[in-house]
């Protein structure tokens, strides 16, 4: 499931990230925000009056705002992050 279509406030973890769909600087910034395979993620808020606005997500312990184009590049699975993956912390 894409992060874009993840229901609000349902815990999930990042399955894969399509880094090629993001520009190098965007990819770097997302990595710095803790976006990586296995990190726990939760969609919190959607912005924009008429839709098309950014999405605020909790990644690990951080709240990050990103545009829909970024969220479309992130593939997620619902449920708590599995322990063996390195991304898990706030599970």
């Amino acid at each position, binding site marked *: 499931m894409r992060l874009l279509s993840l229901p609000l406030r349902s815990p999930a973890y990042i399955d894969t990230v399509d880094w090629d769909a993001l520009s190098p600087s965007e990819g770097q910034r997302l990595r*710095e925000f803790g976006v*990586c395979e296995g990190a726990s993620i939760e969609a919190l808020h959607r912005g*924009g*009056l008429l839709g098309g*606005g950014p999405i605020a997500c909790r990644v690990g*312990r951080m*709240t*990050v*705002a990103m545009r829909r184009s970024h969220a479309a590049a992130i593939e997620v699975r619902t449920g708590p992050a599995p322990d063996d993956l390195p991304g898990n*912390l706030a599970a």
Partner: protein
Amino acid sequence: MSSFPLVALVGNPNAGKSALFNALTGARQKLGNYPGVTVERKAGRLSLPDGRPVELVDLPGTYSLAPTSPDEQVTRDFVLGKQQGEKLPDALVIVVDASNLDNHLRFALELIGLGLPTVVALNMVDLATRDGLELDARILSMELGVPVIPTVAVRKRGLDDLKAALETLLSSGATEIRPSAPPVSFEVVRKEARRIARIAIMRETASRRLTGAVDRVLLHPVAGFVILLALLFVMFQAVFSWAGPPADLLEGWVLALGAFITNTLPPGIVHDFLLQGVVGGVGAVVVFLPQILILFFFILMLEATGYMARAAFIMDALMARVGLSGRAFIPLLSSFACAVPGIMATRTISDPKDRLTTILIAPLMTCSARLPVYGLIIAAFIPARSVGPGIGLQGLVMFLLYVAGIVGAMLAAWALRLTVTKGQSSGFLMEMPKYQLPRAAGHTDRPVAARRDLPEARGHHHSGDQHCPVGAGQLPACARWRTAKRIFNRGADRRRHQRAGRADRFQPRHFAGTAAVHGGARSRRVGHRDGVCDRCRG
């Protein structure tokens, strides 16, 4: 620039760097600019426990040593000793947010890898506790190989420990310095950071943060937008109505000063210069000072509470339509106060085209210097009547004038995007900081005496001794001494060592009993894996 040891404060954005900087340097700050870029250089003087002065520089917050914007470039160049006109720092203070450890540690590891003498300030430990996190600074220190000092910058906790650790670092002499970015891959560092964070976190409970609940309302697509507009409206209404009485007062003074000049000086060129030039010119602007101050107050409050990032989030969809990102909203809102800091604030926008567009439209926002003109025109042409409960016509017109400025800027941005700054925009990626209660200059919860650094308080009443020389026992009500003593008491170890004449061997190990930290770059080579430092045993 100065011969004092140079210490740089580095860390992620929102780690509380500036609060720590303010707490450490107090009023002794110097603002400047790095050559060639509009990045502010914030430096201050700090006195170590032994009285040595140190120059502390607050570097712009960044997420890694791979810069994406001009101010991140400054941070990188500074810690590598490549910043023009700066020497290589003698020590680094890495500020990490205790409740965001795994993320902030990654950058901390990157910085520690530079090999400079380093101390880590584990900041905002109180918020981490509130978040249900329990950390062990001792373990963290062992894993990182550098001293780790828990601090709460806004409450001035842990500052003495931090200074003591710095002192140890700077006395131990420079270690081998290899100021080049280590060729370690991002993934490796990230995994290491996560591993260390997991070890250091003793207990972790999931907690529903207040921030999340507030955000549900403030980031709501409809409610959030209405609240933002209402907030802006109240802000401008307040600028107009609250500023009335103090502005009248100032006007009275200006008139009185004019009358005084007329009465005392004979008519002539000096009289005219003072009356029409100085009093007439400066006076006309000074009258609007209350309005400008109120506007700046509101903008600073929005920034300090963390609402600015929310405003950017709400505005992003709209800004995207004219080819800008929500990030541009903050510089543009600052431009309401003054376009100069507004343009300076654009340095956080990493995309050059986004930045240029924002810079070009920022002056179209109604800055506070235009406020007098608006005020004058409104007072002259708009009657002061009410058009509804609590809504004055004058305030409403003021609001609409501001809106006109915004619409004009948006049209200009749209036109620029089609011509000068053509191309793909960079998108919107932003951290949403936790909400915080703003504090006046970061130190309101202490009596006045405590706002001074300890050496000064000591100099006033007890010159390095335990007893108040002004009269031990005679002055039990000496508030300043009591406060100084209270701070002093927390450094129990320090006193013990001083009494025993071993001040040189003092190692900070207090702060709620969690931190046993052994400073100095040498500690990396000192065996203390078994929990006790070799240097303490010996």
